[in-house]
């Protein structure tokens, strides 16, 4: 195939990488927090916030670009019909540009998730492993 996703650091190696300070939290790795719930709750709250920002930014960017493109197409047809480079209409070029932009968006999304969400998710899962893992009735 003509494309590939460059190798992001694997899950294991990111343990060695320096995580953002807010994701590692105040207590050093490996020690249980003093309160019975505070550490787990704090991690969950941070994870929720990280997920929320991650999702919002990605979705609003993608939807916003497409909505702006559609609005321009319908409301400013003369602008979109103006010839751009190569003699093709600007609208068509903007449409075709979405193809490389999508690849870029996927790469950025993966990288951001790897940096900001995964360390927190791992920590939250470690906290939750301490009580018995609950799973809806297993077959």
């Amino acid at each position, binding site marked *: 195939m003509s494309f590939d996703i460059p190798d992001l650091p694997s899950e294991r190696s990111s343990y060695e990488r320096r995580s953002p300070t807010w994701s590692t939290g105040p207590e050093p790795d490996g020690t249980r927090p003093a309160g019975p719930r505070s550490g787990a709750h704090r991690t969950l709250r941070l*994870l929720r916030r990280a997920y929320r920002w991650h999702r919002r930014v990605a979705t609003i960017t993608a939807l916003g670009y497409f909505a702006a493109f559609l609005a321009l197409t319908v409301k400013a047809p003369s602008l979109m019909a103006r010839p751009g480079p190569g003699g093709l209409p600007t*609208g*068509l070029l903007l449409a075709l540009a979405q193809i490389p932009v999508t690849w870029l968006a996927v790469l950025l999304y993966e990288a951001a998730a790897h940096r900001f969400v995964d360390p927190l998710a791992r920590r939250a899962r470690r906290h939750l492993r301490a009580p018995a893992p609950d799973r809806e009735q297993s077959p």
Partner: protein
Amino acid sequence: MTGFGGSAQSWSLVAFCAVVALTLLLCVLTGPEADDLAEFYTGYRSLSPLRNGLAVAGDYISAATVLTIGGIIALCGFDGIVLALSALLSLLLLMFLLAEPLHNTGRYTMGDALARRHPARSVRVTACLVTLAALVPMMVVQLAGVGELLAYVLGFNDAGMKNGCVAGAGVLMISYAALGGMPGTALVQIIKTVALLGSGLVVSVLILRAFDWQPQALFHAAARQSGADDAYLTWGLQYSSSPHPALDMASTQCAIVLGGACLPHVTMRMYTAGTPRQVRRAMSWAVSSVTLFVLMLTLICTGATALVGHDRITAADAHGTTAYLLGARAAFGAGLSRPESLLFATVTTAVFLTLLASVASMTLACANTLAHDLTASRPVPWAPARELALARCGALAVGIPTILLAVLAQHRSLQPLATVSFTLGASAIAPALLYTLFWRRYTRTALLATLIVGTLSVLALAPGTTLVSGTPLSAFPDADFDWFPYNTPALVSVPAGFLAGWLTTVLAGRRAADRERSRYASHEHHLLTGPPPRRSP
């Protein structure tokens, strides 16, 4: 009728038979044990991200995408390209918004994802009915396409033969789904995606070579040959007969962006990955593959118009559904040498496999929901072997009526049926999933209201749209009962679905909201961190 030479036809026939035999064999070999539910439904969540991603891409690139959107690109240019892009955006949004939460909350079906917060029989039964209502029209589209495609490629014109082809393909898809389960259909999807992307890449390169590697020359030639000149490269050709072209375009895009990737046969693949991180990686592969495919579809179908011309495309099929094949054939030049025949046979086989594989996945999604959602809320769960047998019977029970409907529908325009599926996804499934996963106050009654109002509004409005009657390209060109003058019902049904959920929740009062909030909080860690990883046995 067909413009393909004799050698291309015989190679295609050989390739079709080989593909059918091979995929069926693989399905039987990879199929689950007789009492292994987890393997039948999810393949133990053990697919690697790349393979899972290719399977998601395979599920997502249905025959409706290749043939219908390909036809619109060939005939209407810019409008078709924007449709293909909105389909791509839909999958991208699935990756950004829903993929990981769905993986974390769902187990086998969409009903599982919804019922985790609202465990009730009514939720599961409604989810099952909505799944069937969304997928059966799509399956009819794909199956009815098989008859036309085989008739076109193999060069016969007999109605009985076409019906035979539809029935044969239908039996095949039931076998894939019933014998192979999730691992089997995933394998068929992977083979199909690789075949489709590989052959498409070769054809795209050939088309670009025919225009001296200058894409702008390709687009200008297509505009000249389309009979519409510059209008081909700008907005509006597809909606030229509509009284409100801008609204029509907006509602069509809205239906595809919201509905395309929410359909249960795509979302069920979210449950087959092991960890949230693997889901994300799988979706990266899927989005990348579909992006490549959209690029190739654009090149091949514009190439069809540039090389073959608008008139010959509409002569072969009024909706241009054969444009992808015509473009591929034209890319090889006038005469076909033996390697070229073989390559062209790969293209036709990839399209044939696309038709078969997408129907198989949809059948599996329907069978899963019939077996799992209807029995999951029993006080005493069924034995795995019994539920598995029920799933296999479910494939049969959904498959046979679908085959009959496809035989009846195959000579009509199939666009309205595909539109019903997408719009149902956008009006009922998308709001239900979004609210359930992200809105704390969302109540069970509101969930039911979203699903029911969204579905009913689509089913009520769809017969009145212009795709069903009133224009020469409608499904019933002679009749005229188009009281809703748009291509899709999405303009009303999508807001109806979202509003029904919102209003019912808001009107439920403060106590219900508090109850739902605390229930959401108790499930939140699951939503965020997912199930514990499973060891494959």
